[in-house]
């Protein structure tokens, strides 16, 4: 299997199939990244499409000595930030989540929904520089070295941002965390 970097180089060299392979690898991850605060599929789809268009336009800018993944995520996060700035609004926490409330699943599903909503609420309220690092590390699986490369900061600075973000989340989530701590097998599989 070709690496991301090999695929990007192949695409820059004219291999159109390499682009589709990159799309298949990353479209679901990018959609999750966008949906985390948008909760509006149409807007998330639009931002994912914009990300891949930017990728296409910047294909000659790709530096093969750098990792592909942080580069792609930097493009996606820049677009996401611009989207919120353009709309002059904070990331959303509700929207389509309201539909989940009505879904069947009993008390466990309801608690999981509440916890998810609380986390989305808290994530939307921590500074962007902390949120970006937590999202990239926790949800997208990037190492701190990769995040540092993508954000143009040092690896230590990335870890410090994550730590401060975790502290702020803990403060915001207060009661929710106590509930989770008191119920370690709470339907999340942990």
């Amino acid at each position, binding site marked *: 299997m070709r690496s991301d970097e090999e695929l990007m180089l192949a695409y820059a060299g004219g291999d159109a199939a390499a682009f589709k392979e990159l799309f298949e690898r990353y479209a679901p991850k990018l959609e999750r990244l966008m949906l985390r605060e948008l909760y509006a599929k149409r807007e998330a789809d639009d931002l994912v499409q914009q990300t891949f268009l930017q990728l296409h336009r910047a294909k000659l800018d790709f530096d093969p000595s750098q990792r592909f993944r942080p580069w792609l995520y930097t493009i996606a996060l820049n677009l996401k930030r611009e989207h919120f700035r353009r709309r002059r609004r904070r990331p959303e926490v509700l929207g389509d989540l309201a539909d989940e409330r009505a879904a069947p699943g009993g008390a466990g599903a309801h608690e999981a929904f509440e916890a998810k909503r609380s986390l989305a609420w808290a994530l939307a309220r921590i500074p962007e520089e902390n949120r970006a690092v937590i999202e990239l590390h*926790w*949800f997208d699986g990037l190492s701190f070295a990769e995040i540092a490369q993508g954000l143009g900061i040092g690896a230590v600075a990335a870890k410090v941002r994550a730590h401060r973000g975790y502290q702020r989340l803990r403060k915001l989530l207060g009661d929710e965390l106590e509930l989770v701590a008191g119920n370690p097998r709470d339907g999340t599989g942990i």
Partner: protein
Amino acid sequence: MSGEPVDCTEIRDALLAGSAPAGPGVEDHLRGCEGCAELLRGGGSLGRILSRADAPDAEHATLWASVEGALRAEQGPRAWLRSRVTPVRLLIVVIAALVVVGVGGLAAEPSGGPIEPHPIGLGAFTFAGIACLWAFLTPTGRPRVRSGARLLLVLAALVLPFAFAVASRAPLVPAGGSFAELAVSCFTYGSLLAVPFLAVVWAVDRGDRPAWMLSAAIAAVAGLVANAALVLHCGNTEPAHLAAGHAGIGVFFVALGALWVGMVTRRS
């Protein structure tokens, strides 16, 4: 987990997989990593709650179709220009600015008054313009310059021509028109010169959606280009003329840009 050394990603993976990371390797790691220590505090409650945040996978067949359609539409000179490497895109913009300043600045002034090019003013306009372009046309996958710094650059690009006007000594007013006529004449001429420059920047910009800061920055740089051309073209060094007829061009384009971004944003 065993006594092997672990890193932050392994701690995260373990929490996601539902296990409680423990052991000498984990303890060693936690002593040097405040972030992971925070995640695992209180029985790993924060780590556990973070694992719930992901949205479900979505259907991508239709999304690929629209990406494919958008890629097919990427044809023509603009598509070619905006896919050049960033240093080349910057070079194209700088060449466009030089052509505008050269052609527009060296064209004969109607009043035929004496021209005293101001090297410090020209140098300051050039420096501010390039700094602004560099901050706003950075390669797509690079982190952006902080928004506070970008705002300062835009403000500097707008204020600089006014500072140049205020600093103008020994005012020299050529004969041949009232203050208003001369100011309107320079303002119109400078604004017209800025249009081809703006067209080139639009052609190389990779964005599809108008953004407030980007529009303000490009408008301010267009103002600097017009002011640089006018420094070479207009012999009038009266501060009020320089402020109204020259420096006002940047402000005018910033206002125009804000109106345009506002309209497009509302429509979408």
